[in-house]
């Protein structure tokens, strides 16, 4: 910190010129500041040490193939969307968010099922009324039970997905 800033500038300038090939790698000892000469020498050796060839293309390809296999193994491919095209799509930022989206759907189905069930139950209670149309509750009740089962299955599926 107590060093003069000009030494910082000189060394930075020398490094830029050396790395762009404007300065030869072989330094001739001069009458200049000994400290600066030592720093220059260090930079020249660092350049040589860091210049050991380019990335190995075969290695790069091998790693790429392994990554592709790993990607497929991890099941990271885009899954076919279970939602219709008009469903508002948003960026899925993480697994938790994705899971919540499914839970939301399952919950919505469950709520609809409960409402249908309640409606059919009230129809069923009113059945003995004379003149009522036949078969109303008889259709609604199994449908409501079926929807309820679907909702429960949806929730279980969402939870299993979360644990995976």
């Amino acid at each position: 910190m107590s060093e003069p800033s000009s030494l910082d500038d000189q060394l930075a300038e020398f490094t830029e010129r050396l790395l762009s090939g404007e300065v030869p790698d072989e330094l001739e000892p001069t009458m200049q500041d000994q400290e600066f000469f030592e720093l220059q020498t260090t930079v020249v050796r660092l350049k040589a040490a860091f210049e050991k060839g380019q990335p190995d293309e075969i290695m790069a390809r091998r790693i790429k193939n392994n990554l592709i296999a790993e990607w497929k193994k991890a099941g990271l491919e885009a899954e076919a969307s279970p939602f219709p095209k008009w469903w508002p799509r948003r960026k899925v930022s993480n697994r938790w968010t994705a899971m919540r989206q499914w839970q939301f759907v399952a919950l919505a189905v469950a709520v609809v099922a409960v409402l249908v069930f309640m409606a059919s139950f009230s129809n069923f209670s009113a059945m003995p009324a004379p003149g009522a149309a036949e078969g109303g509750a008889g259709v609604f009740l199994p449908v409501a039970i079926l929807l309820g089962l679907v909702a429960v299955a949806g929730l279980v599926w969402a939870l299993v997905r979360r644990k995976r």
Partner: protein
Amino acid sequence: MIQRDSLGPVGLSALGDAELVHLAQEGSLEAFTVLYERYFPMVYNRVRYLVPEQDVEDVVQEIFITVMKSLKSYRGISQFSTWLRTLTNRRIVDYYRRRRPPEEEIDESLGENDPRLVSEKPSVTLDESILLREALRSLPEDYREVLLLRFAEGMKFDEIARLRGQSLEAVKSLFRRAVVAIRKEVGGSYV
């Protein structure tokens, strides 16, 4: 919104990091592959100066697998390249943590004239590479980082200043101190 299906690998290469990350987060393997190809040299260069040669490939692969698995947690607060650099540095630290204590890095079976002992630059031997690696590892993180950015990644000082959010003067000063430190670290025998 970018439609993944409408872009081939060539079209994807024209996209910025943020778009590619977004597509990869949505499950596009092609986007992830383009990111890999874009950043392989950076990661490789960083790893090979800090990790013994025989382990470079494994470490690089582990880094990209970590990227793949952590991609969904990346929220774009920092630049992707910065995030990747941090992740790379962490994996290198993990590598040394896992590794058994001092393992001999020069194979004793190598003869004096074995080509593996001499790198492409005649002046830089394998011994010197090991010295450099050990010296780099023992430097304070700031010093190591500025040297890696300048020499391994080829960034100019003004680019380093922008990346680190520092003034150009501060980066030049940091660089000089890093050079002094590495010289001291390896003594007169090397740099």
